[in-house]
């Protein structure tokens, strides 16, 4: 058993694909029409190549309620690791990304939190 795929709910798949590729810098792996929605996954150019993140439509009202409540409570729904958080923070801010928490030491790691424009908070961390 291995982890092959994880997903994040997004309120608009077009907008999400733009944000996750053009702003964050992930690569589009699949983009397949499925009825009214699409099966979209991205991978990180920093690897691993076969671990995919699906940009899942949050059209289910239950999903939307969950997503909005977690957002309002300030709880990130995904965490990405970066090699240099100060560099990522500056790069993303330059692209208009809104941070709720600038890079700060938290125990053994440095954390930052930003909004992904699709209804989620995302945490970045740099291992020490």
């Amino acid at each position, binding site marked *: 058993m291995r982890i092959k795929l994880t997903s994040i709910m997004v309120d608009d798949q077009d907008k999400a694909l733009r944000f996750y590729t053009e702003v964050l810098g992930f690569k589009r792996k699949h983009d397949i029409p499925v009825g009214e929605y699409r099966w979209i996954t991205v991978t990180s150019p920093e690897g691993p190549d076969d671990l995919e993140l699906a940009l899942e439509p949050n*059209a289910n009202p239950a999903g939307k309620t969950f997503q909005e409540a977690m957002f309002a409570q300030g709880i990130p729904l995904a965490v990405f690791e970066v090699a240099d958080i100060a560099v990522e923070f500056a790069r993303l801010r330059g692209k208009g990304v809104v941070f709720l928490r600038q890079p700060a030491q938290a125990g053994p790691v440095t954390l930052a939190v930003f*909004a992904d424009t699709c209804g989620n908070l995302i945490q970045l961390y740099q291992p020490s």
Partner: protein
Amino acid sequence: MLLRPDGFRRLCRARDLLREVREPSPSIADLAREVQISPFHFIRQFEAVFGTTPHQFRIQTRLDLAKHLLAIGQHSVTEVCLEVGFTSLGSFSTLFTRRLGEAPSVYQRRVRSSAQVPGVLPAELTPGCFSLIGHLPAKAFGRPVRSFREA
């Protein structure tokens, strides 16, 4: 942009307010005042955080709710139009058709014609994305999916 906790709470509150249906419908400037942000900063910050303007967010929320009511309720198109906060059936129908590709009445007939189980949302309203994996061609996963026999 770095948003402080109180600014973040105001935007979340504004999102809740945009979802409310009030008569008469408050302007975006009214809502900005209600959450104590200047209209200019409100629109700019809201768009940077939520990826859409307050006005577009409210329209999308109303259309989503309209879809839901058309699909599951026993309401007429006119009732749904009023229920989600539009005052003109014409502008509701035009907007719905432009965004969703079919008129509200056509959408309603199509979704309701599919078999429905009471208490269960129609498939049109629930993408159930993980289940999509099972409907994808094997090549979508990069290498052939092995059958149980091979495994």
